[in-house]
């Protein structure tokens, strides 16, 4: 080892050393990304998605079998995901999106159409799911359908004396500080739209928007928290901190699995909003060639069955639905959560971008600000 006392450092060598140190992370990261995208046998697929679209165990198994590693990054709001895809360019290869948002991605030129036949496992999907008009384009499919759910009311019968029957009933002062919902401004205003009689809750304007905002104002004292992720709703319902949750199908199962009480669903008479999730292939993704084999590996019935057992909401894989409906252990839940009824997905008001996003966000912020 050289004697440090003998090392002669002048300003030039210090600067050069600093420069080399500064540049090395970029060089290394460049080598790493090059390694991930090069080679047809495998690599990494970067995926902007929700936490319930995969499990870590599934990603490990898929990586072992296909040599393609899924690199998920989570988001909560569709508008947030759209913004990230717009701003990051080639960074993401797949993005998940809700129902009518898929068309928005296409209009913005952010995704590429594909042929279902390119993803062999698509033959496991329900025929209805392969025919959703909002997922199609003259040039092919825009999204690979994954799961769906309506958004309704769940309540703890031990804590709620008069069960809610409508969105409007949630404004009852008796529910003060008892409700938890996800912090998605567009969807909450859309629920306000449904509650106040709008037929197009994602296209509210003028009086319609004012009425929806007034509904949220009346609802605010009853909302204890706006959760950033759905799992917070589950934990608050499980712990009893919240008595009512505005949440997806299967919330009752997840609350029970989290050690919580038996909770019940209430389907509001004004109707529900809901999502149909799809996986989209980004136009500028750096690893586009890997997306189809990756989806082919991820969407097999084996994993979809596990996904249902974990997340408890309907998915569009017919083969998985048959397995679940024929298994006595899962048949009841699969039936109750409409695994065999994909047509019901079209009965909800589908989630989509607001026609005037600025008005929605501003109205929401003005209600939930100080």
């Amino acid at each position, binding site marked *: 080892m050289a004697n440090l006392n003998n090392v002669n450092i002048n300003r030039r060598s210090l*600067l050069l050393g600093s420069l080399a140190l500064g540049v090395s992370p970029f060089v290394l990261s460049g080598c790493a990304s090059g390694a991930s995208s090069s080679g047809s046998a495998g690599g990494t697929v970067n995926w902007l998605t929700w936490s319930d679209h995969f499990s870590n165990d599934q990603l490990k198994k898929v990586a072992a079998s296909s040599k393609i590693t899924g690199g998920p990054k989570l988001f909560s709001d569709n508008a947030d995901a759209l913004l990230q895809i717009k701003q990051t360019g080639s960074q993401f290869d797949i993005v998940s999106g809700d129902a009518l948002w898929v068309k928005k991605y296409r209009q913005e030129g952010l995704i590429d159409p594909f042929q279902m036949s390119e993803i062999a496992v698509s033959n496991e999907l329900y025929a209805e799911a392969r025919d959703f008009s909002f997922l199609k384009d003259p040039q092919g499919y825009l999204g690979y359908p994954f799961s769906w759910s309506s958004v309704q009311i769940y309540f703890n019968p031990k804590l709620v004396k008069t069960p809610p029957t409508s969105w409007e009933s949630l404004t009852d002062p008796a529910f003060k500080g008892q409700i938890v919902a996800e912090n998605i401004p567009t969807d909450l205003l859309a629920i306000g739209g449904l509650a106040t009689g709008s037929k197009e809750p994602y296209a509210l304007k003028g009086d319609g928007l004012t009425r929806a905002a007034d509904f949220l104002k009346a609802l605010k004292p009853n909302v204890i928290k706006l959760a950033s992720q759905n799992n917070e709703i589950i934990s608050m319902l499980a712990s009893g901190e919240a008595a009512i949750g505005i949440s997806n199908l299967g919330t009752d199962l997840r609350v029970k699995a989290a050690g919580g009480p038996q909770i019940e669903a209430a389907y509001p008479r004004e109707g529900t909003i809901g999502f149909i999730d799809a996986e989209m292939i980004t136009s500028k993704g750096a690893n586009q060639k890997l997306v189809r084999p990756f989806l082919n590996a991820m969407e097999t019935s084996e994993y979809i069955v596990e996904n249902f057992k974990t997340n408890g909401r309907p998915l569009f894989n017919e083969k998985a639905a048959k397995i679940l409906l024929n298994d006595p252990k899962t048949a009841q839940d699969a039936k109750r959560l409409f695994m065999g009824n994909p047509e019901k997905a079209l009965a909800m008001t589908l989630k989509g971008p607001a026609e005037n996003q600025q008005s929605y966000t501003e109205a929401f*912020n003005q209600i939930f600000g100080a």
Partner: protein
Amino acid sequence: MATLETARVPDAGPGPAKPDAKVARRERRNWRQYVGFTPAAIVFGVFFIAPLCLIVVYSFWQTKDYNLVPDFTTKNYATIATTDTYIKTLGKTILMALLATATTLAIAFPFCYWLVRYVPPRLQRVLFLLVILPFWTSYLLRVYAWVAILGDNGAINVLLKNLGLTDSPVRLFLYDTPGVFIVLVYLYFPFAALTLYSSLDRFDWSLLRAGVDLGASPMRSLVTILLPQMKLAMVTAGIFVFIPILGEYVAPEIVGGTNGVLMGNLIANFFAGYLLPLGSAASVLIALVILVLLVLFRKGLDTKDIYGS
């Protein structure tokens, strides 16, 4: 200075150098002395100045149908400045930051005073390690820990129930503004403590004894001798605590519920809703508040407070 520079100039050779060549050489040398700052300037420029400029530029643009449109407008600022909720939320955020900063300092100062003055050095280090220990864990974990402490099934409620003081969970703090206040004080206490401790540790305590010897009461010695010398440390600690609190949005989101919302949460909603210009305008306003307060802090200090007498 001129003498020093002249002394450093190597001999240019026989005969006097031409005046023009001398000036050129000096200018070249003046320019070269800043080369060493280049890495810092690049880092500062790329990671601080450029994003800040981008935010300022965005704040004068518009969003139309999920697209940023570079049409100049001051409407974003007008919207923030004329909407009651935004003004109230900004006011609440500043008030929260001021109160949390004052409370943090009020707790940190006596603690550090006690630590430096009355605790043996070896134990001092152990206790101070306990103060900075939370830094070793994730910020999110520290905030969620408070949900576990203040929640319905949290430590406080379990204790109250076991003591027979209550049958049902008490919701005094969680999911409301007081919860945010408690968590912010907890989160930023180490920042204040670190700054005050290092300053108190270097204080010459014989000055206090001299004050008492000359007839001042211990409290008067403290107020007239110690506190003025701690002014710079207090201001620095205040800045370390105050500025990040103004931009806080994670802690209010986790423990604040619908009543504990601060400006950072509204900005997060603006950005999530693709309203970059409106979010940027709100961010610029917060940055301006910080700038004004920093100038006021700076003006409140004498030059000798900063550079030493």
